[in-house]
């Protein structure tokens, strides 16, 4: 039987890791991910997992060891945040190009500098082109559920790509919420056994991993990564459907809230969606036709599906919890704009950069965003393409 517990996101993630019981974990502590590593260390010390836990001397080595372990032929997990992810950046790309089905929880934290330990999405957005599948979760439950589904997605033989599961630092990582933890057996049954492909440890069938790859083949190999991402777009819903069958919770590429008949749509990732939902309710009560879309899968970017969901909206406001300096707007805005343009959605679009370095985002700020959108719908004009919420200008 599953059980309900009050848990923070990091404890829920550690629970998922305990249940997955990976063959190898290599990780390094960094706020706000640290308690995951600590909790998991205790599981190792208490013999609750069979995992070989490599307490590496850096995140760069964490990812390198994960790649080596994965190529050796087993299940591998890790977790990090911000500077840790930045330090392993070189290896993050190499993991994907080696087609290593590693699962990594990234507890979102602002990148230095200046140094800051609180939430924004600059860390995982910085690796959005690295070739990893990226899943954003809103709360501890989604962090837990995504970590478990990630194992199946990553290891699917049509995919074989690493998966990053994200949730918001402190807000979700350290906020206690009600979490439904499934049975160990049920989780293990859901993920199934690991199937090794071209294992380094198969000494009778030697393979060469990571050769020098020039202009005559490099492009084909990159192309194969593109194909794998396309397959992932098929596999992610399949895994979600099976997950729902097992555990009853439904997951898609994104989550819609009162979006169907909405004229004004807000698009926002992760925990802020919770706040936005209550704002939607109060504005709906006032008769405003507002709705919310919370993306879950950022890579592969479900462009067509997003366009369809937003097709008949008048104005779409995007909230970006990271910026892309010198670009048109934040990463979510830029990607979504391209998607809507490509699939002939005529909605006007604006961007709100918010919550950098953990700055609080209040319901009244989100309400002001909706009021902006309403004004734009009325005038038909974009007042300001990118607005920085709650900043001293």
């Amino acid at each position: 039987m599953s059980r309900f517990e009050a848990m923070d996101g990091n404890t829920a993630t550690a629970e998922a890791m305990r249940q997955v019981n990976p063959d190898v974990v290599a990780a390094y502590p960094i706020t706000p991910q640290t308690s995951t590593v600590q909790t998991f260390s205790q599981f190792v010390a208490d013999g609750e997992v069979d995992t070989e836990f490599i307490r590496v001397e850096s995140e760069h080595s964490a990812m390198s060891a994960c790649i080596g372990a994965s190529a050796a032929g087993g299940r591998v997990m890790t977790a990090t945040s911000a500077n840790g992810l930045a330090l392993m950046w070189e290896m993050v790309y190499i993991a994907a190009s080696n087609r290593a089905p590693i699962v990594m929880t990234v507890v979102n934290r602002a990148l230095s500098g200046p140094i800051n330990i609180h939430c924004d999405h600059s860390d995982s957005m910085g690796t959005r082109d690295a070739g990893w599948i990226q899943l954003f979760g809103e709360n501890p439950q989604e962090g837990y559920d995504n970590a478990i589904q990630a194992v199946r997605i990553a290891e699917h033989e049509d995919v074989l790509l690493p998966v990053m599961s994200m949730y918001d630092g402190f807000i979700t990582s350290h906020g206690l919420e009600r979490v439904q933890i499934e049975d160990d057996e049920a989780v293990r049954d859901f993920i199934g056994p690991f199937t090794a492909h071209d294992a380094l440890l198969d000494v009778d069938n030697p393979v060469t991993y990571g050769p020098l790859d020039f202009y005559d083949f490099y492009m084909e190999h990159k192309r194969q990564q593109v194909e794998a991402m396309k397959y992932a777009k098929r596999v992610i819903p399949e895994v979600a459907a099976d997950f729902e069958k097992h555990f009853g919770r439904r997951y898609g590429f994104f989550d819609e809230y009162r979006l169907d008949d909405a004229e004004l749509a807000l698009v926002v990732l992760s925990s802020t969606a919770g706040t936005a939902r209550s704002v939607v309710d109060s504005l709906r009560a006032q008769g405003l036709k507002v709705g919310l879309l919370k993306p879950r899968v950022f890579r592969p970017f479900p462009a067509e599906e997003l366009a369809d969901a937003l097709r008949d909206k008048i104005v779409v406001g995007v909230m970006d919890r990271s910026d892309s300096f010198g670009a048109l707007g934040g990463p979510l805005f830029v990607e979504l704009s391209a998607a809507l343009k490509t699939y002939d959605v005529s909605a006007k679009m604006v961007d709100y950069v918010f919550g950098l370095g953990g700055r609080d985002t209040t319901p009244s700020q989100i309400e002001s965003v909706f009021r902006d959108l309403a004004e734009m719908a009325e005038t038909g004009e974009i007042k300001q393409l990118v607005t920085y919420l709650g900043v001293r200008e």
Partner: protein
Amino acid sequence: MATALKLKELYKKEDRLTSGHRLCAGCAAPIIVRQILTAIDEPVVLSNATGCLEVSTTIYPYTAWQVPWIHTAFETAASTISGVEAMYRSLVKQGKMEEQDIRFVAFGGDGGTYDIGLQALSGMLERGHTALYVCYNNEAYMNTGIQRSGATPLGAWTTTSPVGKVIPGKPRPRKDLTAIAAAHDIPYTAQASPHNWRDLMRKVRKAVAADGPSFLNVLSSCNRGWRHPTDITIEISRLAAETCYWPLYEVEDGEWKLTHRPKEKLPLEEFLRPQGRFRHLFREENKHVLEQLQAQVDRKWRQLLKRCGEEE
């Protein structure tokens, strides 16, 4: 029974690094790798840092490696093999795989070991993975065109320590990485050279038999970077040992031991002269650098003798 360290037995063994690779003629690196892989009778799994050895043996779709081999990046030979070795232990412990007595070996150049990969190496040694790390040390970044490294000796010419109007080559001495590795208190550390193949192979056997990490620093002549003829690779290696520029020794469970003591310690000049990278040191105005270099070699040699409990 281990294969006897006799040529008539060893030559029968199959090459684990085949011919057809693109390392330069006369390069010591493949000689060293072959000596090492021939010394090991057990199955091996290798990790290799970016550098000459890696780029020249694996240009896709070809590979010269007849054994499992992985390259991830420049500074990651030690961390990558750590992951491979941990996975092996995990699978065996869980009964998911049969024990197979696999030896885990990492190869890195001096750049990938003394410099950018030092932290990963230190981590691997401290954590106690049962793996052998081999630095094939050609004393510069050769793959990228002969730039200085932490292993480049005082006064040597490289493209980033050029001989200029005011600075005659590298102004700083090399670091003593073998001693740094030994300071990790690992079961086995040694310094070797391919001219003394029996000594090198014996050390490899000890290293892979150790219960824990081991480190081997092997001097690896690069005729392109050292600027010497391609056919004196072995001779120049011998001169490195005979001048005590590259002493052959081992540190076993904290005990330092010379494995070769030159009958007569040759003047350093004999090692330096055939190499273009030291040519400028023989000019009158650079005599002081030459003397400094000799003095450094002498001092390190005396220090080593003391550590090994040998008389001067």
